[in-house]
């Protein structure tokens, strides 16, 4: 996973490979706080699949102190067996006032991503974001 300033393309944060560990534990992302000032931010998710998947989709929710701020549903449909794929979302930040205070937000924002094949849950990940 990585995050960028969508207007300049500048890479702000990159997770490296999390692999299987990501599915068992809550992961932590230490992101530079300047990301809160970007007019648009993009997040990219990379994944590989050995198997063919027919109706791959995901649901992603961003929570701030447990309240859902943002929700993305995305239908990928078919996933090619043995493929490496990426999904980049660009969001224009209409950040509310309190989004501007990194210290208050740090550790209170979580990104929950659930992956499905049709109706069957395949995997779920949780990333907690710290602004540093």
């Amino acid at each position, binding site marked *: 996973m990585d995050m960028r300033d969508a207007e300049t393309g500048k890479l702000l944060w990159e997770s490296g490979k999390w692999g299987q560990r990501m599915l068992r534990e809550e992961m932590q992302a230490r992101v530079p706080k300047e990301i809160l000032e970007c007019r648009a931010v993009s997040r990219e998710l990379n994944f590989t699949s050995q198997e063919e998947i027919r109706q791959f989709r995901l649901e992603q929710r961003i929570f701030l102190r447990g309240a859902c701020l943002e929700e993305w549903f*995305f239908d990928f449909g*078919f996933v090619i067996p043995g*493929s490496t794929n990426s999904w980049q979302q660009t969001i224009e930040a209409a950040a509310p006032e309190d989004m501007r205070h990194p210290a208050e937000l740090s550790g209170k924002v979580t990104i929950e991503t659930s992956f499905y094949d049709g109706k069957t849950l395949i995997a779920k990940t949780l990333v907690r974001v710290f602004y540093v």
Partner: protein
Amino acid sequence: MGLLTLLRKLKRTDQEARILVLGLDNAGKTTILKKLSEEDITSIMPTQGFNIKSLMHDEFKLNVWDIGGQKSIRPYWRNYFDQTDALIYVIDSADKRRMEETGEELGQLLEEDKLSEVPVLIYANKQDLMSAMAPDEITEGLNLHTIRDRPWHIQGCSAKTGDGLQDGMEWIVTKINDASRARGEEKA
């Protein structure tokens, strides 16, 4: 103009627009999309599946699908045709050896029912190379004038320098907006 600017120019009559980007391997599809997002283009690997860029602006979404063009991946292209609003077909203008092959692949796409009437933008990429064929030559060589069942346009470009990318995107916006206007009139 980046993809964000493109999104801001699309009329918001439909909730989503989908652009499909295809072409032979090594044509420069991924490089074009990265260049349009101002990302680094120096270390791009061949695409072994899909790369999707989703952009959101005021509840309106643009999804751009870039699928790998290697021979082994091409049979899977058909899984991604549904609900396409515009097709971008990328050609490596310097790859004369495979000009016929790329023409055949394009010809097959244009015969697909699911892509019927979908506007097609052909990027004649790598115009920065000395050996690149000009867009006119490609039009001639691939008989593009025989395309009559949809809007089409060929645009010379270089993903390396960024030249021509914007002009191509402007054309796409106009065509997607035309189509959604036509649908609106049909409903009324």
